[in-house]
């Protein structure tokens, strides 16, 4: 593979890796800090993707559009809508055992998928939305646009990372982790457990929506298959578990690591004879499933385990 080709391949890996890092950071806020099991990441990702796409595309006779807003507005809309949906789900489930939230989140993801596929007036159904703009799309195009996008994605990752770190160290974050580790004592001290949990879930969902929006703007095209639960929900869980749940740095490392592994193995499997290519995708699925089990049993805290931040006393 010639050098520029290799370089831009790396760029594409880093872009997708950045979007995954965003998803992992979001999930870490929900699971690592809040102890909530969100099994419907794909749903919130989808809401964000479609909201951002609809808000930013030009008009079309076939579906809702024509707002032509700038990308940043699209992403904000994505965050808001995904956050609102998360709020509804959390409000209903948060006082029950975590298994119920898991079921409800899968349900909402499924319902959203149905809406996306069936309401073509909104989403153009399975045909998908085309012509989704890139940020700064008027100024750059082609390969340089990819580089610009790479910077854009990672700038957002940085912002979210800083926000997450701030949350982690804050009194809010500490209360949250106290609730996660020992709910009874936290309640005894007077913490409103439900409110914290809802807040956590909403913030995480909002960031997942942003990730979805970024994905739509990257590929410039969006269809229901872009939110495949295997790639979005499942892989993100494996990434977070492997990288270190409860740990923001670990979330990013896990995302980049697992995504690189996934992409690189794809190079090899693409070279296999045709009958083996489909086989190999199932083998990859199987290995990812096994990897999750392995990480759950041996490295629950992941490669970079959680370290409690030193308490800072007012001087």
């Amino acid at each position, binding site marked *: 593979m010639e050098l520029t080709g290799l370089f831009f391949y790396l760029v594409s890996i880093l872009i997708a890796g950045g979007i995954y890092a965003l998803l992992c950071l979001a999930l870490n806020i929900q699971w690592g800090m809040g102890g909530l099991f969100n099994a419907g990441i794909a749903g919130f990702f989808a809401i964000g993707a479609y909201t951002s796409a609809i808000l930013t595309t030009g008009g079309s006779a076939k579906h809702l559009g024509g707002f032509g807003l700038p990308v940043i507005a699209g992403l904000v809309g994505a965050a808001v809508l995904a956050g609102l949906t998360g709020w509804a789900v959390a409000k209903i489930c948060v006082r029950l055992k975590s298994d119920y939230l898991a079921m409800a989140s*899968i349900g909402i993801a499924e319902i959203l998928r149905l809406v996306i596929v069936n309401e073509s007036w909104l989403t153009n159904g399975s045909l998908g939305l085309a012509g989704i703009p890139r940020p700064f799309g008027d100024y750059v195009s082609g390969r340089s646009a990819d580089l610009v996008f790479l910077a854009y994605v990672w700038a957002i990752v940085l912002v979210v990372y800083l926000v997450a770190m701030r949350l982690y160290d804050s009194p809010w974050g500490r209360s949250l982790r106290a609730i996660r580790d020992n709910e009874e004592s936290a309640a005894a001290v007077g913490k409103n457990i439900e409110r914290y949990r809802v807040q956590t879930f909403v913030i995480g969902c909002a960031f997942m929506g942003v990730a979805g929006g970024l994905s739509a703007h990257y590929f410039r095209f969006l269809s229901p298959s872009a939110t495949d639960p295997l790639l979005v929900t499942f892989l993100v869980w494996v990434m977070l578990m492997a990288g270190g749940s409860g740990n923001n740095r670990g979330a990013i490392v896990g995302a980049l690591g697992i995504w690189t592994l996934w992409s690189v193995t794809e190079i090899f499997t693409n070279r296999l004879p045709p009958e083996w290519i489909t086989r190999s995708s199932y083998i990859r699925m199987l290995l990812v*499933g096994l990897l999750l089990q392995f990480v759950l049993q041996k490295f629950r805290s992941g490669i970079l385990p959680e370290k409690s931040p030193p308490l800072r006393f007012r001087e």
Partner: protein
Amino acid sequence: MIDFINFYLFPALAIGSVYALGAVGISMIFGILRFAHFAHGDLMTVGTYGVLAAAAIFPVSPLLLVPFGMALAIVSALAVDKVFYQPLRKLPTIYTVISSFGVALIFRSLVQLFWGSQNQVFNSGGVRPPLVLFDTFRVSVLHVQAVVATSVIALLLHFFLSRTKTGRSMRAVSDDPELAQVAGLDTEKVVRWTWIIGAALAAVAGMFAGMDTSAHPNLGWNLLMPMFAAAILGGIGKPMGAMAGGYIIGLAEELSSYNWIGDSALISPSYKTAVAFVIMIVLLIVKPQGLFKGRLL
């Protein structure tokens, strides 16, 4: 009216049977092992393909081959419990839920690896004409078989749970696991039987579902949410309640697309699967213990 019975009521009872059988397993596992088994749908798929594989070898009606599906599902469930779930039992149950999420993927990819991902139709000797009763009612033979089989299983299950030692032990463990240990009950045997019964019933459900449409790798996963809804509706830890819940969900789903008001369907058929979800959400808001006062855990 006749159309209603033929095209809505009978199919509703048939899909209700599938949901009932699956929901029983989910409710029992939730009650005894205390976690939501996300791999239960794919366990059904494993059962379906077990029957399919046997049907490729033995030229008899697939219904007679259901023991093969059950055997494959039981072995898979026990293996998965031993290797993946048991090591996590000392931890908060949410870890086992996450693990079951992964196990679902493992089952699905193994099925695809061995059988490919296209739909496979059960060869039940050509297309059978529907049963015609009283010259007006038409019902597919398979649907009748599903409802009859489920009813028989329901009776057997009730007998097992209320009259046998193992059944009573299972109810005791579901009621209070610590007291069960103090009373000296063999909790490991109870866990084993939970998987055996859950897997066997899932295989039967999978077979009927597969024969009704076709066998494909996502068969079970697609049915998971309605089965969860049914288990919650019936009350967690109440297997007979889950059976009732399965039928209620089946009826709600099928009857929702009937043209109750005017000429067109009340709810568009493409949103049929949303019905179970809405019911589940309403339950979680209003009455999470379900109809038969199950446990909230």
